[in-house]
């Protein structure tokens, strides 16, 4: 059989994680470079996958299938459609930037070395704690799991990864907090572990409820393989009772809604993103959370089409609430990172809305949205991180007039912000507009409510920019350095990508469209036709 490209794409970062973790404590820089190297290699593999993928071809391509746990009806089945591929590529793309941006985040801080010197009875023995190695190893581990989860076409395999990726994320959040915190170190540590535990418990509860549904699915279907289930459906040998299907759907959807996160299950995100270092925050919102929305598209709609349609009204309402609510709370935040977190909640509302509008435009838009939001949030969050590490505070009120002393930083920050408010010409506009149009053509009222989101987005972004970057230069901001080369290397490619995808999204839409058409046929939905068949 051919070279298992998908497995390799996921395995490479995993190997990288182990290799990085194995680097001796003293050789911190080696570990960093090793991690970067592996992430780049993964990116290359992802690129190859993109090249090998034929938009017109079979629904799932580059497939692999091996027996795994027969007794559970589980196979190791991989395969990507346009959606999975796009997100996989996004992940592979972002991780190098995340690593590069977090280059110094896990260096042992002077304070902790101080603490180690008065380490109680074992003063003589220094810690064998290797934060740097751990940090990058965990990031790579997350990458591996996320990529594999985008490739999995076996529900059980997906579930396992969906759950397992919580653990490294949990350590990343709880173990490597943002140095820029208010109050004492102990206090900060407490907040951090609170955030980490909150993150883990929320998602674990979601996952466990999903577990019940997964088992239920097995009892009903007797297999976890999407393809087999699809066949069984087609041949009519598998028919779920309406009520069963609805319960199972709810079980799955709950887990994904926690991950996404959808109102009112969102409160873990601001804590997590606020306490984590900004690269990790990017990892959460730009990469890991995408698994949730992706899974809605891949599993909820495909496995339970009827139930999905049944639940649509409620979900649409929840999505709308997320959009408006998230935006309003973003306006009300005092902490830069929490603000971005709430903005993300609003954006996830858009994604869910697009998915459950069940129109081609909506779902294509949602998929593009996942990618674009990943890039734009990464840009904004990472620049914000650079800003925060310079000043050592997350509070908006502590900034002012930065653009005077660090124009490039301010400029990139502004572009990231403009992308967040989805300005035309930048990538997010395309996806957001598609989602809006798609929603509007199915549910006009919902479309209009969602449109208010674009005003609110402008509000929180511009307020943030005005308070931090403009006005007279604050004393603490005086002499703040502008972006360094490493930081530029992180930011500029992202911005370039935002511009490119904003002007020419065709490459993306080409691979996404067929997948969306498949999903549409899964749920047996047709796009509402315009009342006038105008000459196109």
């Amino acid at each position, binding site marked *: 059989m051919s070279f298992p490209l998908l497995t390799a794409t996921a395995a490479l970062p995993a190997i990288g994680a182990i290799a990085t973790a194995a680097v001796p404590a003293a050789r911190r820089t080696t570990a960093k470079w090793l991690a970067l190297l592996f992430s780049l290699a993964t990116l290359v593999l992802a690129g190859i996958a993109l090249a090998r993928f034929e938009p017109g071809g079979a629904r799932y391509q580059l497939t692999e299938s091996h027996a795994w746990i027969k007794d559970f009806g589980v196979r190791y089945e991989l395969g990507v459609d346009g959606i999975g591929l796009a997100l996989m590529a996004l992940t592979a793309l972002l991780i190098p930037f995340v690593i590069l941006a977090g280059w110094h985040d896990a260096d042992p801080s002077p304070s902790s070395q101080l603490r180690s010197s008065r380490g109680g*009875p074992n003063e003589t023995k220094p810690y064998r704690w290797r934060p740097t190695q751990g940090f990058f190893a965990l990031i790579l581990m997350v990458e591996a799991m996320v990529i594999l989860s985008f490739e999995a076409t076996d529900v059980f395999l997906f579930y396992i990864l969906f759950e397992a990726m919580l653990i490294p994320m949990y350590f990343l959040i709880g173990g490597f907090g943002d140095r820029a915190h208010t109050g004492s170190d102990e206090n900060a*540590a407490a907040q951090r572990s609170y955030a980490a535990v909150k993150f883990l418990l929320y998602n674990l509860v979601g996952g*466990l409820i999903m577990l019940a549904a997964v088992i239920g699915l097995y009892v009903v279907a007797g297999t976890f393989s999407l393809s087999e289930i699809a066949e069984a459906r087609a041949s009519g040998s598998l028919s779920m009772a309406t009520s069963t299907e609805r319960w199972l759907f709810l079980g799955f959807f709950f887990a994904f809604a926690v991950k996404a996160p959808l109102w009112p299950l969102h409160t873990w995100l601001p804590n997590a993103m606020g306490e984590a270092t900004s690269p990790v925050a990017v990892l959460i919102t730009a990469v890991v959370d995408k698994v949730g929305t992706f899974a809605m598209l891949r599993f909820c709609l495909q496995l339970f089409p009827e139930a999905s349609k049944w639940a649509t009204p409620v979900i649409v309402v929840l999505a709308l609430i997320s959009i408006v609510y998230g935006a309003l709370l973003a306006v009300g935040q005092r902490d830069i990172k929490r603000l971005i977190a709430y903005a993300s909640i609003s954006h996830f509302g858009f994604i869910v809305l697009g998915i459950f509008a069940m129109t081609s435009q909506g779902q294509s838009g949602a998929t593009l949205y996942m990618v674009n939001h990943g890039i734009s949030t990464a840009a904004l969050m990472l620049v914000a991180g650079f800003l925060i590490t310079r000043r050592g505070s997350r509070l908006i009120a502590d900034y002012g007039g930065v653009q005077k002393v660090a124009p490039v930083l301010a400029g990139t920050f502004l572009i990231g912000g403009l992308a967040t408010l989805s300005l035309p010409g930048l990538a997010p506009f395309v996806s957001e507009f598609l989602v809006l149009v798609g929603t509007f053509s199915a549910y006009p009222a919902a479309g209009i409510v969602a449109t208010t989101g674009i005003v609110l987005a402008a509000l929180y972004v511009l307020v943030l920019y005005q308070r931090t970057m403009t006005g007279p230069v604050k004393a603490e901001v005086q002499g703040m350095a502008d972006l360094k080369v490493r930081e530029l290397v992180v930011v500029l490619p992202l911005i370039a990508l935002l511009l490119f995808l904003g002007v020419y999204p065709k490459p993306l839409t080409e691979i996404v469209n067929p997948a969306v058409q498949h999903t549409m046929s899964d749920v047996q939905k047709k796009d509402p036709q315009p009342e006038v068949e105008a000459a196109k």
Partner: protein
Amino acid sequence: MSATAVHSLWTMAGGVTSAAPAEKFKAPVIEYAQLTPVLIVIGVAVVGVLVEAFVPRRARYYTQVFLTVVALAAAFAAVIGLAAGGYGTTKAHIAAMGAIAIDGPTLFLQGTILLTSLVAVFTFAERRLDPAAHGNHVDSFAAQAASVPGSDSEKAAVRAGFTTTEVFPLVLFSVAGMLVFPAANDLLTLFVALEVFSLPLYLLCAVARRKRLMSQEAAVKYFLLGAFSSAFLLFGIALLYGYAGSVSYATIANVVDGSVTRIDPALADTMGNDALLLIGGAMILTGLLFKVGAVPFHMWTPDVYQGAPTPVTGFMAAATKVAAFGALLRLLYVVLPGLAWDWRPVMWAVAIVTMLGGAIVAITQTDIKRLLAYSSIAHAGFILAGVIATTPDGISSVLFYLGAYSFVTVGAFAVVTLVRDAGGEATHLSKWAGLGRRSPLVAAVFAVFLLAFAGIPLTSGFSGKFAVFKAAADGGAGGLVVVGVISSAIAAFFYIRVIVLMFFSEPKADGPTVAVPSPLTMTTIGVGVAVTLVLGLAPQYFLDLASQAGVFVR
């Protein structure tokens, strides 16, 4: 020996039988070959006692360790041999005049017990953790169990370098009992086996080197409650005997499903209905549920787990559960299948309260050993969910779960033995703060075990939990699955709490040190981790094993 065997001897002597002279001299047939695992262990145990008597003190420790390890290994080899010989599947049958059932579950569980105890025994033999006293290495057992803690006699014993090497034969006896317990095919054997593996455990609990008072208290509690429960068990047996006129599983089963009527007329008119059967069955169940540690028969668990020497706790927590659940399975599937409609609802209730109770109470625990005790209670609940499935799938899932769980447990307690401060093991959770900073490796390993307990995917815990829940759902116990999921969510909370403590909180200035163990404990922990991960990543082979073994011989 079994009741029927003895009975036949008796009739021969009494001559009140109309048997033909030819069979007068028919001796009971004992298939020694198939009992080798048990026989080996018991034999070596006896030898061990002799060693205590005759081998000079210096050599005893090594002799005993050597003997024990060899015995367990040999027994395990024997089990493998039997399995290979097809006794688990095709040639499964009732041996020793109906006293012992040699079949899949028996061999699987015996194998599990033997391996677990083998691994556990390494921690018994560990002598590097405590600082050497007067130049003698010491293990976690009292120099002289009989002497009062802190008394001169004890000091003298320590000075003389005494060690309680009796623990090894005791373990062997206990193991022997455990081997027979799930294999027992009549109630008397069941009872005897129960006592044989319980009594040594009572003693083992009492002989801790450190915190002897707690250790002895644990022993007293365990002993009294154990005896109490075995009294219930025995009375249950009596009633069943009264109902069926025999203690052999097969006979009772036949009577229960009415294929044979053995009810004495005198009983019929007095007792009339199946009261004897129901009450007796219930009492036997409670006796077994006590050993399993199911709510509300669990109260002994936390105290005993906490007080007993940690190696003993590990051994007890792992092996006892395996044996007890084995016996429970056989009882429910072989003897009382006809009563399924009577006992299932009760077991439902027990399973639910066990899962929830164990998980909820564990939240507020502050001692790591107690925490693990409560977690073991919650796990008992999960296994019960599988037991209730009453499908072949259910049996194999329980077998698999037991195998997975026992290794995690032994490993976890082995790690607990490593974390020590001036007062011996530092079991209070506050002491564990920042362990991840001090010794990342140990903390990481323990984290792995905790995650397995919590049933996080890619660990054996998840595979087991999934198997059990799947079986339960298939067996129409979907409700149990939901409760199980909820309680695992609750349980996750306190496992995570420990991880938070180890990794995210700053080390205390007077924090404990992590002793560097000898290869013995390292092996224990290593095996634990290995099994945890293997069963988590590629459980298929063992699932196959379990499902092949999942058939009881009647």
